[in-house]
């Protein structure tokens, strides 16, 4: 069992926000920390990694105590078996892809491990390139591969895909899922993208202002469980315009804008920028090849 009890005052844009976290999460599962920027998501990852010290609390990963303020236990990052993937990748510019991975290796004799990971992450043909010669998606893959080399007990991903375009993001989400299942790795992913959370998460912790406001499966969190829809998507309202006596609401679902007709009554509860569930029941979908 993994346990997180953390408290610390965070300096935010609107003054001091107290971070208060008390939760558990399962071994081998992919847990997503979801919430707006400034909610404290990355801070929690850094605390688990030992890069930032909480004021109070306890961090237990796979029954090993990494931090316990009451017993004055605080393992340095070097002693915590973690794989950390930074948002900006943090690859070492002076080393090739292969050297980046070899550097992460504790025991030089296990160089075959590096080859296996290069193979699984489809990086073998880029092994001798320097990071500056790689595209964003490739850098991301190297960062993930490097984090896997040490066989971490927990994989910490700080918005690893946010800097990539949509197509690359989708592709890497699939790969991430494959790798996470392949190694059966306990993983914490920070994300603010609902689509990504739906696709990847087995368990979601939703954060706002330093507190967990909801936890559960993606369906429980975003489900809108009152509607038993056949088609159900999450999206964001990008526009509301009046057209004669009805209103047309434009909703961004994934990369597509969908227009939905609404009545004045319905529109009263909606505003631009709001996250909504879009569901439909009675229609038969028509599938056309493109």
């Amino acid at each position: 069992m993994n346990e997180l009890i953390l408290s610390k005052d965070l300096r935010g844009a609107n003054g001091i926000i107290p971070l208060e976290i008390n939760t558990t999460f399962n071994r081998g599962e992919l847990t997503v920390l979801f919430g707006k920027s400034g909610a404290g998501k990355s801070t929690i990852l850094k605390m688990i990694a030992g890069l930032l010290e909480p004021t109070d609390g306890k961090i237990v990963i796979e029954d090993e105590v990494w931090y316990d303020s009451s017993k004055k236990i605080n393992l340095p990052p070097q002693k915590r078996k973690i794989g950390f993937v930074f948002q900006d990748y943090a690859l070492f510019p002076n080393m090739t892809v292969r050297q980046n991975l070899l550097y992460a290796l504790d025991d030089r004799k296990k160089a075959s491990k590096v080859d296996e990971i290069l193979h699984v992450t489809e990086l073998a043909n880029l092994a001798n390139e320097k990071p500056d010669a790689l595209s964003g998606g490739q850098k991301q893959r190297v960062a993930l591969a490097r984090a896997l080399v040490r066989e971490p007990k927990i994989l910490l991903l700080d918005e690893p895909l946010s800097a990539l375009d949509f197509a690359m993001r989708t592709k890497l989400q699939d790969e991430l899922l494959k790798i996470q299942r392949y190694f059966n790795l306990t993983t914490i992913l920070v994300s603010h993208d609902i689509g990504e959370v739906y696709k990847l998460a087995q368990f979601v912790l939703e954060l706002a202002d330093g507190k967990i406001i909801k936890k559960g499966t993606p369906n429980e969190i975003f489900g809108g469980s009152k509607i038993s829809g056949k088609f159900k998507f999450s999206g964001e309202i990008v526009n509301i315009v009046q057209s004669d006596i009805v209103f047309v609401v434009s909703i961004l679902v994934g990369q597509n804008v969908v227009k939905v007709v609404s009545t004045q009554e319905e529109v009263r509860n909606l505003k631009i920028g709001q996250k909504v569930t879009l569901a439909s029941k009675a229609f038969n979908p028509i599938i056309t090849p493109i």
Partner: protein
Amino acid sequence: MIEESFMQTMSLTFKLAGITTLFLLIIGIPLGYSLAMTKNRLKPVLEAIVSMPLVLPPSVLGFYMLVFFSPKNAFGQWLDETLDLRLVFSFEGLVVASIIFSLPFMVHPIQSGFAALPKNIAQAAYTLGKSKTNVIFRVLLPNIRPSLLTGIVISFAHTVGEFGVVLMMGGNIPGETRVASIAIYDEVESLNYSAANQYALTLFLISFAILLSVYAINKHFLKAELS
């Protein structure tokens, strides 16, 4: 005869610059690193001290060092009696004076090199189980090579070119403290213009060659990093 004293002075000049640069590198890396990383409130004080030689007249620095290291004073006496080291009017004294005088020229490039590195690089290496020392030597230093090169060359060139501090601390003892810049002054005073010109032209050409190579190499480094 002139030829021999010329060679002696030039080799002393470069020996002084070489030793000074080596010591400065050893001091400059940890000092530049801690200045770049510290959040201590006293950081501006330390920065001001390191930068003092940039604005202080060399004669001021030389004068205080002369007083401080004089065997007539407590510290100078202690050095003299316990370490058998006399720093005034000696080569060792010139090395100490040059290190202090050229300190900002080594520390500044190294400090800004460290400060410009993404913070996550070091943190990523810590999460990979690497110690601070390991991270400095394997990750941070290799990525600030242009800054190191700039620091080394500028400190070297600056030490070759210093005058005031050397004159105050070292005087003009051939083979011991008589470096090229002092020799030029000395030759001009005795109206020996051709000898002065020999020193001056040599320093002029060497300084130009050194700076040219820094800019050429750093351009090469930058290009290599971008491609």
